[in-house]
């Protein structure tokens, strides 16, 4: 088990390293001097000082090393567009919002989706199955931004039930969470249903029935425990989807979150901000994947004992 964890952590660091390096060089390689627009009207000497301040007068590789050094000390630099505002500060200010939204969406998505999947499997070919499958197909077919827009239209304008945009109360979080989680609910439901049906055909379920295990225990201890394992493997990519989807959702609902901030940094060409936030985002995502992988290792006794898949 330990071997398994160490291996995953190792890959995580390696990937992170590659991403950071790649991002750094790509951003630097983008045509257009980041500061040119700002520095255009400054006299020559001031311009030189200006560039020196941001270290942009040094050769690229030196800049890279300096950057990595700063990174180790968790210094992500300053915004190029809004001087004085540090990247880290920005992250600190906006990410709690996104975090809350993201966590809500993941929990909601997983529990709802898995429950629906179980329901559909047990009521196979009866109406609950059809309803769940229909919703699931919808969830997989309708893009997130469409769901969000529709929800916004129907539940805030047509029927003014919830606030349209903004952030602050719990009410503000409901629609965005649903919009964000809709796709995952669908994915979990479909996958869980397939797994439960698969498990129901396994020999060990017959053994359990032959033992006289009562229906409820059978479902809980024998069916669900085995069916849910593979579903955890898609937890990782689903979390990824939530990360990505949040950018758009935040825009639609005008939520002052990390994603929203990130997109505006891109639009402003604020390179150091982009760099810093991209790294943060990547690190977060990779950590989430790692946690899911470890979780899977803990839950599946076959991996827990032997350390390999």
């Amino acid at each position: 088990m330990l071997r398994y964890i160490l291996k995953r952590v190792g890959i995580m660091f390696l990937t992170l390293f590659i991403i950071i390096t790649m991002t750094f060089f790509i951003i630097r390689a983008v045509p257009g001097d980041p500061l040119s627009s700002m520095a255009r009207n400054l006299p020559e000497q001031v311009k030189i000082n200006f560039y020196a301040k941001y270290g942009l007068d040094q050769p690229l590789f030196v800049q890279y090393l300096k950057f990595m050094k700063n990174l180790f000390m968790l210094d992500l630099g300053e915004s190029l567009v809004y001087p004085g505002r540090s990247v880290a500060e920005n992250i600190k200010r906006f990410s709690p919002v996104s975090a809350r939204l993201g966590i809500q969406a993941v929990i909601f998505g997983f529990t709802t989706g898995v429950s629906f999947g179980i329901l559909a499997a047990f009521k196979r070919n009866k109406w609950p199955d059809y309803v769940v499958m229909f919703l699931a197909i919808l969830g997989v077919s309708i893009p997130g931004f469409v769901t969000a827009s529709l929800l916004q239209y129907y539940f805030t304008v047509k029927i003014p039930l919830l606030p349209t945009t903004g952030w602050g109360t719990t009410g503000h979080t409901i629609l965005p969470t649903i919009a964000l989680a809709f796709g995952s609910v669908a994915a979990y439901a479909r996958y869980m249903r397939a797994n439960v049906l698969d498990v129901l055909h396994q020999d060990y379920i017959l053994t359990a029935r032959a033992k006289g295990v009562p229906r409820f225990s059978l479902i809980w201890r024998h069916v669900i425990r085995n069916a849910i394992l593979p579903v955890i493997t898609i937890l990782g990519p689903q979390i990824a989807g939530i990360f990505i989807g949040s950018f758009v959702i935040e825009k639609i609902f005008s939520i002052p979150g990390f994603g929203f901030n990130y997109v505006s940094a891109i639009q402003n060409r604020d390179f150091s901000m982009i760099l810093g936030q991209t790294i943060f985002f990547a690190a977060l995502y990779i950590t989430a994947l790692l946690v899911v992988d470890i979780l899977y290792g803990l839950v599946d006794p076959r991996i827990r004992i032997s350390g390999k898949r």
Partner: protein
Amino acid sequence: MKSNETDKTVQLTPDMFVIEGCSTIGAEEINRPEITYWEDAWRRLKKNRVAFGALLLLIFLLVMTATGEYMGGYSHEVTDSAIRNMWPDKTHWFGTDELGRDLFSRVWRGGRVSMLMGLLGATISTFIGCIYGGVAGYYGGRTDNIMMRIIEILTTIPYLMVVILISLYFGKGIFPLILAMTATGWCGMARLVRGQILQVKEQEYVTAAIALGAGPWRIITRHLLTNTLSIIIVSITFDIPRFIFAEAFLSYIGLGVQAPDTSWGALASASQQNLMFYPYQLFFPALMIALTMLSFTLLGDGLRDALDPKLRQ
């Protein structure tokens, strides 16, 4: 009462008790007619009404994206400020947009782009994935190990990051769009193909074929490929909507097709601001995306069931 239940009224006569030996006529008759794997799969698919319906819907959509633009009689790019933001009516079946352009023709023209992007993305990543996975699976061992590590790292990189980086570097447009979609999109297919090949390699019938003297080329084409093919087909069917979705998303956030070209995602994006007043502008492109994704998904489900050799009848 079944027709072959014993008729107790038949009298037993001595001539019925003469030993004649076994009648092998009956025994051979029960063999059902031979049909090939593909014929059987097609038959099963046709029986599956949902999947078949999805197939028909898909064909309909494809035809519409090819020809729908010309049906309404309006151009997709001519603007007319006099008829801006009009609700759907008899002349403009899907209404008009902010610049007075007919949405019916725009939706179908955009659909062409979306479909093409989806198909193109799926084709490219399938191609790359197959080759990569095929090589990894065929050679196995160290090569396979290294190749799989690379994939592991690639899949850990957040998709959005790739997209943003590519768009930053290459700017906007169709090329960066395709690049962004396929940069990591092939990994799934590669894993799948490699897994299949590894599995099939171990199969006893391959060993048997080798023992019977079949050459490597024959083994690859006849055995490895045929089995992997069904998996690949199903995978492509699920990949295409993924790419259409990706294209819609990317166009939505502004990376992708630029004006005056349009795609479903771009149309959805453009309608965002006017959503409260003119929801129909979002409705139609969104509906088309949903229908396309829906039919591909249902078709994929049906294909998967039809091609599964274990369910063969």
